[in-house]
């Protein structure tokens, strides 16, 4: 575009004296009906979640892992193998009950669900979507609460259904075995629902890590580190420390939530839930702090 003298050139539609013309009524200022509210932000996050193909895929993968691992573990169960497998690890739900077998996939599902949470939050940072999001909701915190409130219940409900499905599918595989249980037996439904609650919280944990670290790779690494590597690494601690601390590790406290039988070196389901929820709440608080305090 050549740069030419603009003097005397009438630009199309251009008002030569801008100060005289403007309509003092700015067009939008009277509209108070379209305010940002908590419910609306929640509605927006709900729509955002379901409008991404990656959400569907990751969610399906999580539920699939939960069902397949659980069912397969039940079918391949043989009491002799367990006897030679050595003592169950600390905090583990014990390999020798039907619920424990049905929930074999929880560890894998927790990674998928945690990644789903990370994608929901850190994904906005890596793509730049967060700028659009926070420009629309400049108070910022409702975005974090809404993300947690969307993914927590979705993960909880679907993985509870998945856990029940894994148990039901696995039941014929344990037919005739000593350890066979049915859905109506004491504590079975509570354990299966406990797994759903745990995975719902893991999803929220993923969201919080994503907002805290603002990077998908970093948050996924942190998630794997906390859920899988930390318990192993902690075994390097002196025994007395380890015995005292290990039940309070996020993953150990978490697995206590869905254990059918409370083991001596683990927390009770209620205490496990409280401890794991505490970890998630702590991470959420850190995420909220960073979200509000730092530039985007």
């Amino acid at each position, binding site marked *: *575009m050549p740069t030419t003298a*603009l003097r005397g050139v009438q630009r199309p539609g251009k*008002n030569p004296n801008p100060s005289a*013309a403007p309509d003092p009524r*700015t*067009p939008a200022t009277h*509209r108070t009906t379209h*305010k940002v509210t908590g419910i609306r932000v929640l509605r927006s996050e709900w729509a955002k979640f379901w409008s991404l193909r990656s959400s569907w895929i990751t969610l399906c993968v999580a539920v699939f892992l939960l069902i397949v691992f659980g069912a397969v573990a039940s079918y391949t169960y043989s009491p002799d193998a367990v006897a030679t497998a050595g003592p169950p690890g600390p905090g583990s739900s014990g390999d020798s009950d039907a619920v424990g077998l049905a929930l074999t996939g929880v560890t894998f599902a927790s990674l998928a669900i945690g990644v789903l949470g990370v994608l929901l939050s850190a994904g906005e940072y890596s793509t730049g979507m967060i700028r659009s999001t926070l420009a629309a909701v400049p108070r910022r915190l409702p975005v974090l609460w809404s993300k947690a409130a969307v993914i927590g219940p979705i993960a909880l409900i679907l993985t509870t259904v998945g856990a029940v499905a894994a148990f039901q599918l696995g039941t014929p595989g344990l037919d005739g075995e000593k350890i066979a249980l049915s859905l109506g037996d004491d504590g079975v439904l509570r354990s299966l629902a406990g797994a759903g609650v745990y995975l719902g919280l893991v999803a929220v944990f993923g969201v919080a890590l994503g907002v805290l670290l603002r990077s998908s790779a970093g948050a996924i690494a942190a998630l794997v580190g906390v859920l899988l590597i930390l318990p192993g690494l902690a075994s390097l601690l002196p025994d007395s420390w380890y015995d005292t601390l290990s039940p309070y590790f996020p993953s150990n406290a978490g697995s206590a939530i869905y254990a059918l039988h409370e083991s001596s070196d683990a927390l009770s389901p209620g205490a496990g839930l409280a401890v794991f929820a505490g970890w998630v709440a702590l991470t959420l608080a850190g995420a909220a702090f960073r979200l509000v305090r730092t530039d985007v």
Partner: protein
Amino acid sequence: MIEARELTKRYGDKTVVDNLSFTVKPGEVTGFLGPNGAGKSTTMRMIVGLDSPTKGSVTVNGRSYAKHAAPLHEIGTLLEAKSVHPGRSAFHHLMALAYTHGIPRRRVDEVIELAGLTSVAGKRVGAFSLGMGQRLGIASALLGDPAIVMLDEPVNGLDPEGVLWVRNLLRGLADEGRAVMLSSHLMSETALIADHLVIVGRGRLLADTTVEDFTREAGGGVKVSTTEPMRLRSLLAGPEVTISSSSAEELLVAGRDAREIGAIAAQHGVPLYELTPQAVSLEAAFMDLTRDVVEYQSAPADTVRKAA
């Protein structure tokens, strides 16, 4: 109306925006100009609260942005074209923003049509060209029917038709009484759209002026060749007229346009054999103004050649 007062942003010991004060008024298009790295984008991010100022303040329609109950109705922004999740379709992206304010779906369809995205609204944004991404960004800026529209480099990546569309759109928005602010590093393009200019370099305000004043001060003038330069010189003289001569029969007249000079010469029977308005290079004037503050100075071409 956007009012920035002594706006300052430091990252460590690097001052990106330095004591910047300016006003963007309704009914006008304000061009926010500066070389790359002048702090334009940082300033715009501070306006919508994405970055918080180290010092100073900026208000949008009298309040800081985050205090508004319906921020998208106050100001619509295009910050970077890729402020979008590439896995979501254009329609779902706009819907997600609309939900936060309870903006009806009807309005989403409207802005999609306005931005010319109807045929690709269902496509994932990741597959969009730069130009389509810009159109989506402009559509989301208009979503809330805002009193202020603020666009960071809106014509980047647009084809000539798109550039013309943006130009007419922004003019139309300003004529409706909205405040329009657009940033650019291209003076010539901005001069075609803007009424008002805020020019920055290294975060500091270099000029706060109108396009007309800037053009006038940029100089230029009219080259006149005549057989009677002395006589013409005295005829053209006036309080705001400066005349210089580069050769015996040539005059360079600033302060009168070619039409005036021709009329005066004809009236007094002075023969002219050339009467040429000099092309003012606004770009050159802009570069003069910002030369000392260019963040990423390129070496002159000949030194590069020598070095090679």
